[in-house]
């Protein structure tokens, strides 16, 4: 059923349809609409779940870990400082191999306090062992959240569904909301493979000395390496039921492109507009929207970039001292390839600063003229 939905509500609808049983969250702008909607659903009974109004994000993740360990489907949402506060437990959730799904609204970190769009928060957590899926539209948010549960419960890794602050979380778009029956068919009830067991009392999460720990970590990595295969499978099934799929990356006009842009989130929509204009002018340009960031989709990216000469990466984030994070990851992914397009790193749109088609034109101009990329990322759109 099609409705005009705020991005936040695409999340909450999906969580309702997924029949999460325990939701534990702490409010932080701009995630608040997600949790407020879920509170209402729990209160009016349209979602049969327990909503725990915890006193911090750290406790939100802890409660989800507790609930997931006891064998139920869980959900939480956060952003920015809240996500940062959870950091320790993000490691815990993946180490415990719990299929927790979290909506993460990409927001800047302070000081200065900034509630607007920025990718630094989620990317700072890229080492925590969570699957990270970046969304561009409200429909994609809803779909990805439903898929996230299937994926998480298949590989026993937690999943972060990421959406841009305000640009996605607070804008309204038409969304096809599936019916409960179809969702139940796609996403059956949770059968936990890890659970506290009263019949054969077990201890979970104990101390693991050197003789055991490394194998556990290797197991996480192995699970991560199997994600691509299961993601494809989940998307295939999703498409079968609902008629939509996205792929780990979504290329646009890349087949014959010499210059390819790469980015995640809503800026991909803007970029496509720039691509169309540039194409009209005869440039062979394209754009890759990166959906799956963890695990990094090496094969898909290398394949798409096979014939590219230059790759233009837009990072709405910065890892100080090493530059834009998507650019770093791409360089790393491409090094092992037999093709080495030049990778140009641009940073723009931090803390809610708009990224416009003109910014893309500027980036294109720069790279067209440049022989080599700089070591350091180039910042676009700074005020003088």
């Amino acid at each position, binding site marked *: 059923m099609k409705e005009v939905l705020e991005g936040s509500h695409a999340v909450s609808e999906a969580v309702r349809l997924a029949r999460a049983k325990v939701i534990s969250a702490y409010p932080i702008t701009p995630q608040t609409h997600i949790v407020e909607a879920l509170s209402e659903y729990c209160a009016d009974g349209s979602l049969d779940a327990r909503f725990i109004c915890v006193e911090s994000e750290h406790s939100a993740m802890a409660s989800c870990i507790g609930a997931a360990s006891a064998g139920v489907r869980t959900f939480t949402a956060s952003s920015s400082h809240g996500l940062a506060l959870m950091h320790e437990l993000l490691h815990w959730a993946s180490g415990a*191999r719990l299929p927790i799904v979290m909506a993460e609204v990409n927001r800047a970190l302070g000081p200065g306090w900034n509630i607007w769009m920025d990718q630094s928060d989620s990317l700072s957590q890229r080492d925590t062992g969570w699957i990270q899926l970046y969304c561009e539209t409200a429909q994609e948010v809803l779909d990805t959240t439903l898929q996230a549960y299937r994926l998480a419960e298949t590989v026993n890794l937690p999943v972060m569904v990421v959406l841009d602050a305000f640009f996605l979380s607070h804008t309204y778009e038409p969304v096809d909301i599936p019916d409960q029956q179809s969702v139940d068919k796609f996403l059956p009830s949770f059968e936990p493979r890890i659970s506290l067991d009263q019949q054969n009392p077990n201890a979970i999460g*104990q101390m693991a000395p050197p003789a055991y720990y490394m194998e*556990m970590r*290797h*197991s996480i990595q192995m699970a991560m390496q*199997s994600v691509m295969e299961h993601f494809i499978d989940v998307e295939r*099934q999703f498409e079968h039921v609902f008629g939509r799929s996205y792929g780990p990356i979504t290329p646009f006009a890349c087949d014959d492109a010499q210059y390819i842009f790469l980015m995640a989130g809503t800026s991909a929509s803007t970029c496509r507009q720039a691509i169309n204009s540039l194409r009209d002018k005869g440039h062979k340009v394209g754009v890759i929207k990166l959906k799956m960031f963890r695990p990094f989709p090496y094969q898909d990216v290398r394949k798409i970039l096979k014939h590219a000469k230059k790759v233009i990466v837009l990072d709405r984030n910065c890892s100080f001292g090493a530059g834009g994070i998507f650019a770093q990851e791409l360089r790393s992914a491409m090094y092992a390839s037999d093709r080495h397009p030049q990778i140009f790193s641009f940073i723009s749109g931090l803390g809610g600063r708009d990224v416009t088609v003109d910014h893309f034109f500027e980036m294109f101009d720069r790279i067209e003229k440049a022989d080599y990329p700089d070591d350091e990322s180039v910042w676009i759109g700074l005020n003088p």
Partner: protein
Amino acid sequence: MSQSIQTQPPNNVSLLISQSRTNTLGNKTGTWRFVRPKYQEKTAPCSNACPLGIDVAMVEMFASRKDYQNALNTVLMENPFPAICGRVCFHPCESACNRQFLDQSVGIHHIERFIGHWGLNRTNISCKYPEFNGASIAIIGAGPAGLSVAYFARRLGYRCDIFEKSDNPGGLLKYGIPSYRLPDRILMDELHRLDDEGIQFKYAQSISMDQINALKQQYDALFLCCGDANSITLKISGEQFSIDGLDLLRQIRSNQMPLIEGTVAVIGGGNTAIDVARSVLRMGAHPVILYRRTRKEMPAHPHEIDAALSEGVLLKECLSPIDIQKNTNLFEVSFQRMKPGEKTNEGRQTYIPDGNRRETITFNHVVSAIGAEMDIMWRNELWDLSLSHCRMKKIEDQPVFWCGDLTTSEKTVTHALASGKQAVIAWDVMQNQKENEIHTICHQCQVGKGPALSFDIYTKGDRKNRNNTEIVKFEHVNTAYFPNIPAVQINKISQESCQNSFDEVISGFNESQMIEEATRCFNCGICNDCDTCRIFCPEMAIQWDNTTRHILMDYCKGCGICIEECPRDAMKLEVEP
């Protein structure tokens, strides 16, 4: 939508997490320890002080649980007459009781009386008297020593013939101790314990030394238990005017109430003097005890002295009689005043005449109660065996044992009973061809530091596992488990009744009083299954399988909490071998 949705978890997803699949029983943490605990029972100070070595702590434990059969059996292993001792014993157990250092000693004496009373008319004992072993013994005298010999000897299978010069058994129990302390009925009921084909009483048979030779032919051993038949005389001029105290008591007990009225001088400071004084008081007379030293030095039991004084008996100290003169119906007794002299090397206070200070007091009667001694025919110097409470001499290779007041240093019922037990054990050892091991075996059977011997240990009972020489000290009792509870007060008849009748003065505990008092016992050194060790063990290394408690040495880390918390010092810590 016909395609089924994949719900089975795929088997290519690695899922190795930190989760338990076994338990910690494989960690033998016993290797950590350098000391190890052990259940080691010890001797309670009461048992150590008891001349009979009764397992008092065990008795109190059973009594507090209303397990009277086991309480009685435990007493009867060492003492055949609890109903009697529970009335007449001087209870050194109470003086040694560790509980006195917390609040007050446990009333062991009165608890024994209760258990004894329960046992009256219940003739079952822990073992029925066994089959005869073929040997037989003769016992001269049916006083406490002789009765004790008969009891223990019969329990070892010997036939016993007791020769008693009077018409009744009991000796001083019958003819000496007044009925307000030991009613005749109780004595008779208690003696039913000896009703058995293997114990034969022959009354009105006075045996002299000459007849010993004849008896020797018919029996495998002889036991002389005649006691001190001869009262010690005053040896002063006019002594013929004095009445013998022991005779007087005998007459009273035989219901031949002599005519005693007015003031009565009772000369002496021992239990006999007290018994005489309290008896004549009850006959309406006014007794005055005259003793040549002070109350502190009187050999009578302190509680007996207290009882006498509270009943109205007067005591005059430091007076030694010099002569007695008759003046019509009255007797004028002259006394030398005494005063403290030097102290002996052992610290005893001597008394010497205080110059010429004299006193003459007139009495209606004069009673002498200064002690008794054995008949001259039983005197002997050279012995073949000398133990703490008995002696033995072989007469033409036949062992003859001297027991009871003939040989004990303290002349009490309890010592006499102990003497009988000791003699029987020595005899039995000889019968088993181990005469040269008598001292060793007695040492093995001793209770605590001795000299009391345990019949239980001798007959290989459980008590042999107790650490005999280690006496439980109060410091080792964990008083955290014992709140202050004062002793239960015993019931007595009124002062007036005391003065007017020979009714028993002390009524004894009723059941709830007895249980309350027995519960106060620490049960020093014995395990009473309180389970404190198991309750606190942090290794779960103390397990209980309905019959025994044992320590899992695979896991015990030797922390020592069990030993520290054991309320009654029934455990011990050893260095890990």
